[in-house]
Structures are given as C-alpha cells and as structure tokens.
C-alpha cells in the first residue's frame, strides 16, 4: 500500500485535522515530526480528522502526517500471553526500555510481539494438505499452561511446511491458492474493529464457574455469555473483576484496565505473576493478557483498548479455548468516545454521549459467544465478556448503564451500602439478575446435584422475605415479630454472613468450588428446615439460637476437606434432637 503523506491543518487536544487526500477511514497515521500514532476517524473532502493516541502538545500546523495505509490492527502470535500492553498493544516493558525511565515518552514504536525470540514450532499438516482459513497448521508451546495453535489465515494447499525454531516473522511454510502463493508465519494481523469470523454461534449451556458463591449459586454467568457489573466507586468492582480473572475456570483471561488507576494496574501486574493456578501449579500469568491504559494515558488509546482486548480474546477463542474478557471499566471507554465526539463537534445525544454509544456497546458485547470456530475440524471456543460500569453517583439510570443492561444477560448490582457494611462481594442479591438460569440448570443438575436449583430458589425467596420483614422491623423492632419470622431473620442472616459474604483475601475462601457451595447451602437450608420443624413442635427460638452448631456453620467457609460437612450435618441433627426433648 502506498504511503500517503499530508500535513497538519489544525490541532485541538487529541484531535488533529490534516490535509490528506485519498486517505481511508480508520487507517492508522503517524502525526507530526515526532511520529505520534493516530487513527483517521472522519473524512471531510480532503481533510482527515485524526484521533491521536499520544499527547499532542507542541504539534504545529504544517507538520507532516503519514498514513500507513493499514487499519488499527493487533499482532496475533506466540508471545501474547503474559504480555502487558497499553491500549494499542505496545508492550509496556519495551516502552519502559525505550523511554529510558518511568514515564511514557512520546512517539515510541514498539512491536507487540518480540521479533527476536525463537519459538519451537511443530507442524501438524503436511505438504500437499488442503487447508481452509482457520485450520491449525501447527502448534507452539507458548507457556506451560497453553498451547498456541497457529491457524492458517488463508484457504489453499500447503506447498511447504517445516517444524523447528522460528521467530514470529520467519516463514514456516506457504500456502497456494488459485496460483497465488501466501507465506505462513507464526504471526498474523487483524483489524481490531472487525470481529473475527466463526461458523456458527450457539446458545451458552455451560456456566463459567467463578468460585464466587453469590455468582455461581444465584447469578451464574455462562461461558460465552455477557455480564455487567455496575456500581458506584468503592463498591468493589475492581476486586470482583480481579477475583473473576483469578478464579474462574476459563483457559485464557484477557484483562483490560481501561481508564483506571495506575496503582491498581500495578497491583494486578505484581500480583498475577505470583498467583498459582490450582490445577496445574503454574503461575496464572501464563494464561493471561493484560491491557493497561490508565486514566491519565491518552484518551484515544483508551477508546482503542477495548477493541484490542476483544480481538485478542477472539483469536484465542478461534484456537478452541474458553476465554474470559474483563473490561474495567466500560464507562471510561464510553467517556473516551464522548470526549472525542465533543472534540469533533458532533451533535451529542443523552448526557453529552455520542448518539452511536448504544450501537458501539451492543457491537462490543456481541463479540462474546460460544462458537464453532472457523475451521474444517469441529472446534468450539467461547468468549465471555464481563464489563464493569461506573455510573456517576452510582445511579444506573444513566446512558452507559442502561445501554449495557439492554445487551448483557447477567446483571451483578454492586451496592455501596453493602460495601459500607464490609459485606463483600457487595453484590445486591435483590437487584441482580441472570437470564442464564434455565439454560444452565441442566449442567448444574448433572454436575452438582439435582436439588441445587431447588435449594437456590428456596434460599432466594427467604432473602426476599427478609427484605419485607426488615421493613416491619424498622417500625416495630425485631421482638414484635412472631417467632417463626424471627427465625427467618436468623437464617437469612446466616445466608448473608456465612454464605454470601466471601473473603477475597482468605486463602481458603477466595475460591469456593461449586460442590462446596452446594454443601454449604444445603447445610444452611437444612438448618432452616430443622428450625421450622422445631418451632412447630413448640421449641423456643432462644434455645435454638444457643446451639453450638451455629458457630460451626459460621466457620464453614474455611473448611478444606468436604467430609467435614457430614460432621456438621450430624451435629445439627443431634442438636435439634436434643432441644426437642
């Protein structure tokens, strides 16, 4: 593609207008003598409007603008995993070296994938084999946890292919199609604003097991599904997102820190390499890609970071993996759109957001899904998108929350008043919902227990009952309630404190497997059954409340050996036997 050259006409913050005839929309350009990266977002006649991914201070009209003739793309190939990138996939480590300091200098060019590192490539096709785009031609053991499957970007016949040690740019073979020859490399590029093709999308039927009780039990997320976590500041969005990134049973995690705090990203960057995958004993970092575009990094790169992340997620999905994508926070992304829209002097929609906000959000979440990957062999993968939303003042009637709710299927409502009580995860069980309950019921029935669904429904209706009773208590005090209702309050308090609350900082409790969740919930509901029966036979509530098994239930979270639940259940039976006499 010929390189177009033009010149700057006007600069206003991150938006630059340039005289650039024959430019194409969404092509990447280098702006000014410093070569700042930018992207064409609007064309009027011969003038291109460019959003620049770096600070534009000092740029002057008349300086040159060069189009690369390529849309904003990511590099996909071995070396992505364990990577820590900025919003336009520049590795932060390389930026550190090139900036010679802790600050991000301007105009730095840094390829996403290491050009020098050699990877051991094992070819899985032979010369003469026919391949379709998306078919696996070979594998690279990228990390101990993940095998990187190299997919052919083209249809055709394999002319040559060899195993061995290669860099990402070396030619490992070639494919010919209709007389044309295409080289095969370990690396390929993909336009971030275009979703990668699939054969078919399926409705999700398998839950993403997160190890978080309130989510798995009451508001399960499906693999390939979408979820949103809105909440005011301080309600624990980031802690929830990070817990999901750490403990969910997905093979690949893409974590986008979009316009968030620098120190928080550092926390992720420092902590993830030390976290160990319980199954393999390897650092979790080996399955993770981090994209960190903090709030003070250029706003246009923040806009791009979400697309960069989801494209990487789709790439791993196409290999046949289950991928979870966390975007923290999509509100910052929407604000970036608003900021750039404002600079373009676009007619604003609601609250100053651009009119295309809803479409962009929907398009983004639509890139999630459980799919049959584009390939001849039958391969399935999924991308689950979990987006945090930061509504101003915690009021979700604002446009970003509302438009997100319309497209996502799970709503985890974070609640500041729970956070004030140090009830974490501060997910409000009355406001949250999931639309996956029915499609996942079968899985829970087969893999956990057939009465799991029944138990969760019973527990949830008790929690709803509690909310009603609390209103009465507010007026008349707890002692005015009949014993049976006081008992409901006693058991729902157990549900809240001993079940829903989960300590993200405890070694045992941070991740709770579903089997244990079931046993815990069963113990509490069994307790309720006992209480209810005992009260019917005239036992006083006071006596029940003195049962020592209550403390045992309170410490169930810390149980490691699931056999201990038998002892608790037995003690419970005996305790109630005793009070009845």
């Amino acid at each position, binding site marked *: 593609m010929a390189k177009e050259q033009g010149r700057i*006409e*006007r600069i*206003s913050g991150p938006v630059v207008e340039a005289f650039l005839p024959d430019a194409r929309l969404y092509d990447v350009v280098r702006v000014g003598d410093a070569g700042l990266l930018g992207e064409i977002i609007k064309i009027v006649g011969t003038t291109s409007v460019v959003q620049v991914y770096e*600070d*534009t*201070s*000092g*740029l*002057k009209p*008349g300086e040159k603008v060069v189009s690369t003739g390529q849309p904003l793309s990511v590099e996909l190939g071995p070396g992505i995993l364990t990577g*820590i990138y900025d919003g336009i996939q520049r590795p*932060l*480590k390389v930026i*550190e070296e090139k*900036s010679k*300091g*802790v*600050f*991000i*200098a301007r105009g730095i060019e840094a390829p996403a994938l290491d050009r020098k590192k050699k990877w051991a490539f094992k070819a899985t096709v032979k010369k003469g084999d026919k391949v379709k785009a998306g078919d696996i031609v070979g594998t690279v053991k990228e990390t101990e946890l993940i095998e990187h499957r190299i997919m052919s970007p083209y249809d055709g016949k394999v002319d040559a292919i060899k195993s061995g040690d290669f860099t990402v740019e070396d030619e490992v073979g070639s494919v010919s199609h209709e007389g044309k020859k295409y080289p095969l490399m370990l690396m390929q590029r993909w336009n971030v604003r275009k979703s990668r093709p699939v054969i078919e999308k399926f409705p999700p039927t398998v839950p993403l097991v997160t190890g978080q009780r309130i989510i798995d039990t009451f508001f399960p997320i499906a693999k390939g599904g979408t979820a949103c976590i809105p909440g*005011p*500041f*301080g309600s624990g969005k980031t802690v929830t997102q990070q817990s999901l990134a750490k403990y969910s049973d997905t093979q690949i995690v893409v974590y986008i820190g979009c*316009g968030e*705090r*620098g*120190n*928080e*990203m*550092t*926390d992720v*960057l*420092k902590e993830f390499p030390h976290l160990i995958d319980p199954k393999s004993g390897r650092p979790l970092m080996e399955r993770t890609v981090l994209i*960190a575009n*903090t*709030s*003070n*990094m*250029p*706003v246009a790169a923040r806009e791009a970071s979400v697309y960069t992340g989801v494209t990487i997620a789709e790439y791993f999905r196409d290999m046949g993996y289950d991928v979870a994508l966390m975007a923290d926070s999509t509100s910052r992304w929407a*604000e*970036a759109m608003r*900021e750039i829209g*404002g600079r373009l002097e676009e007619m*604003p929609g609601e*609250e*100053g957001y651009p009119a295309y906000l809803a479409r962009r959000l929907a398009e983004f979440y639509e890139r999630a899904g459980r799919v049959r990957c584009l390939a001849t062999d039958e391969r399935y993968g999924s991308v689950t998108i979990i987006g945090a939303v*930061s509504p101003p*003042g915690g*009021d979700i009637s604002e446009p970003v929350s509302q438009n997100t709710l319309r497209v996502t299927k799970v709503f985890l409502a974070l609640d500041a008043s729970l*956070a*004030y*009580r*140090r009830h974490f995860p501060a997910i409000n069980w009355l406001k949250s919902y999931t639309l996956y309950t029915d499609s996942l019921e079968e899985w829970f029935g087969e893999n956990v227990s057939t009465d799991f669904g029944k138990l969760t429904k019973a527990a949830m209706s008790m929690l709803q009952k509690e909310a009603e009773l609390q209103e009465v208590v*507010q*007026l*008349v005090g707890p*002692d005015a309630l009949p014993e049976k209702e006081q008992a409901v309050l006693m058991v729902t308090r157990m549900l809240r404190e001993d079940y829903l609350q989960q300590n993200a*900082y405890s070694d045992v409790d941070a991740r709770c497997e579903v089997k244990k969740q079931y046993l815990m919930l069963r113990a509490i509901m069994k307790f309720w059954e006992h209480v209810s029966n005992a009260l019917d036979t005239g036992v006083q509530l006071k006596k029940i409340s003195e049962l020592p098994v209550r*403390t045992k239930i309170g410490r169930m979270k810390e149980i490691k050996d699931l056999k201990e639940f038998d002892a608790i259940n037995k003690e419970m039976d005996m305790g109630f036997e005793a009070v009845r006499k």
Partner: protein
Amino acid sequence: MKEYKTITEIAGPLVTVSDVSGVGYNEIVEIMLPSGERRKGQVLDVGRGIAVVQVFGPTSGISTSQTTVKFLGETMRLGLSTEMLGRAFTGLGEPRDKGPRVIPKEKVDINGLPINPYSREMPNEFIQTGISNIDGMNTLVRGQKLPIFSGAGLPHNQLSVQIARQAKVRGKEEKFAVVFAAIGITHEESSFFMRDFEKTGALENAVLFLNLADDPSVERIITPRLALTTAEYLAYEQGMHVLVLITDMTNYCEALREISSARQEVPGRRGYPGYMYTDLSTIYERAGRVKGSQGSVTQIPVLTMPGDDKTHPIADLTGYITEGQILLSRDLHRKNIYPPIDPLPSLSRLMNSGIGPGKTREDHKGVSDQLYAAYANGRDLRSLSAVVGEEALTPSDRKFLRFADDFEKKFTQQGYYENRDIETTLSIGWDLMSILPEDELKRVKREYIAKYLKKPGKEGEKPAEAKK
C-alpha cells in the same frame, strides 16, 4: 520568536489571534498590553492560521489593535531546584515571598508524562498520621492519593494541616517534603496554613504554590500542575518522600468549567466539561512510587462537596480516580467531634497492602473490620431506636448502641495536637470491642481475641497500655 498584533476576538479568558503560522499546540504565549503590562497564556486550539489562546490572568485591558502576542515556542515549563524548599510561589510559579528568583537546575514540562504502569511500584508502606480514624480504619500508604471529601464550614483545613504535621513512616528517618498547592482559597485560609507551617517548622521542608480567591481563575488550571511537577522532581530525582496537599479541588473544577464554557464546548453533567475525568486523572494519577527511585509522591487533595453531595460530578469523578476517600460528616461536626471523619463511607483502597504484621500489627485488619461492622450496626440501631425507643431493643442491640456512641467519643474524637501511634489506636479499638458480647466478634481471629481483648467487667475504665 513570533510576534503578532492580530487579535481578532476577546471573550472571557480566551483571545483569538489570526494569521499566525508555526504555532504549536499548548505553546506558551506572552501578551503585551498597551500599558506595558505582560501576561502569559497558552494555546488551546490552533489551525488554519487561527490560534485560540487561554490567558492566565484577567483579559481586561487587552485590545484588538494595540496588544502584541508573542509565541514563545515552548510548552509551559517550570524551572526546578531543591532551593525551592522553604519558598512560597504564586499560582504561576513566580516567587511570592520576598526571596530571590530560583535558579533552575532543570526545566520540565508541567503537564508531565503518564507513568508507565509497568514501572510503578506497589505502594505498601504504612504512613502513620496519628489520627485513629485514618490509621486504624482507612490507612494511608506511601504513594497513595487519598482525598478529603468535605463540605463548606467543616474543618478540612485543620485536618490536612494535622496530617501534614504528623505524617511519618515509623522507624525511619528519611528526607521528606511537603508540597502545598492552594487553589482559589481565601486569604484568611492561606494565612492559616502559612502560620501553621511556620509555627511547626514545617515550612523549611515545604514548597508552597498559592493561588488565592482573587487571583485569576485560569491560573488555577496551572497551580496543581506546578505543585506536582515540583513534587515529582523532589521525589523521583531527589529521592524525597513528598506529601502533596491540594486544596481546594472544587475551585479547580469551577475554573475548568469556566474555560470550557468560554470555549463554547458541549457541556457534560452540570455544565462541567465531558473531559473532566481525563483532566482530573492527569492530576491525581501523578502520585505513586516508581522503580529505581527511593522517593514517593503521596497526594491528599481536599474538595468541598457542593451541598455535601457525594454524587456531585466533582466528588464523583474524583472518587473514581483516587484510591479511596476520607469523608467528613456534618453530623459528627455538629456533635463537636473533631476530626469529624465518618469511617463508613470513607475508604482506603490500598489499606490492605500497608497493614499487618511487620507493618502495623497482626490484628489490624480484623480490628478494623470488626469496628467497622459494629459501628455500622450501631448506627443502624440508633435510627431504629429513634423510632421504637431504646427499651424495645434487645440487650445485645443496646450494647451495639453504646458501642457506636463510645466509638465516636473515644476513637473518632481526638485533639488537634493529639498524635496517636497505631498501638494506641488499636488498643482503643480493643477497649471498645470489650463492650460487645464476645461471640459477636466474628471478624477477628480467636487467637487475637485471646491475646488482646480485655476481659469484660473492666470495660469503660481507662484505656489499656499498648501491648508489646
């Protein structure tokens, strides 16, 4: 150097100059008035021969015919040197005291560059402020940005001065400095700070940038950036631990809105510009610790919430960027409790990385969670008892009620000069917990209960001495 006499429009703080060439974005300009007076400004928008300049200072006296505009060819820079310590400057960085000009060791762009998240170090050193509600419940650590959310008439100035006076990392004698940025505060408030800094001797380790209420509001955009540029220099170049106090960010945001409306931009919430989040982040994010440097920048910005409304855009956007907040409560203030910090809506996001064995004490986390939960419960019961009367409460509930009262009187309440070490804070906490039934202490490990809890019966007596 290019000089123009082609001003075509003057509106509010903005001046439009036409027929310019070779002018850079964000470049600094000097404006010479017919009277000979000089003012500074900055290019906000440039293109097709027209430059929009934001003037630092009043635009009165500028005329379209006889005023000269000189483009200086560089962005706003601040000359830096360690000689700045002990000095007071204006909101634009000119000496305000009677001292000489500072001879700069280096000149740095005041907008700074974003810190590479990969090059940051995690803040994890406990700063003892001597204030129980901060140390015990919402611990401050080095490199954190922890704003004080206040309201008009609340003692946020006293509190921030007390923090500046008392803050230290225990067991270490290190170079430290205070950088103070006053944004649009009154003369009276500014002299309160000056007096206190002088009296306690803090002034010799402080750099002051003062933009007072009657100074031009556009300057307010610059003042915090000067302060932070200085702080970064002292921290990362000179290896000092710098505490940056910025008061009052509300005035900063008002100035931002003023300029935005003068530029006729599309307003966001309540007329504040849509980019206010990004703009604020370029201030707040300039805190932290970085690889390869001893020093650190810790920020304590103060903002007064209009109408005590935490959801007001200024407080809201700040809360989304900073690592928590210390919230002052009018109710506590009315009860004559100083400092009126309400621990419930306050938060320190970095607390967990700065506490625990080796940093504060093993029981710190548990004590804090327990006090927090019990106080929240007590406060709920207080409103309940207002409806049903205290008699209707269970005996256990009445204990929580008493706990909440005592918590405010003994834990929250402390003197303006009272500097409590963390052991004292924790032991007050344990005293308070002894009011409650022991089986309600679910948040603390049992071994710590055995080790630290005073047995009931002695409750209400004088606080126990700190345990070793």
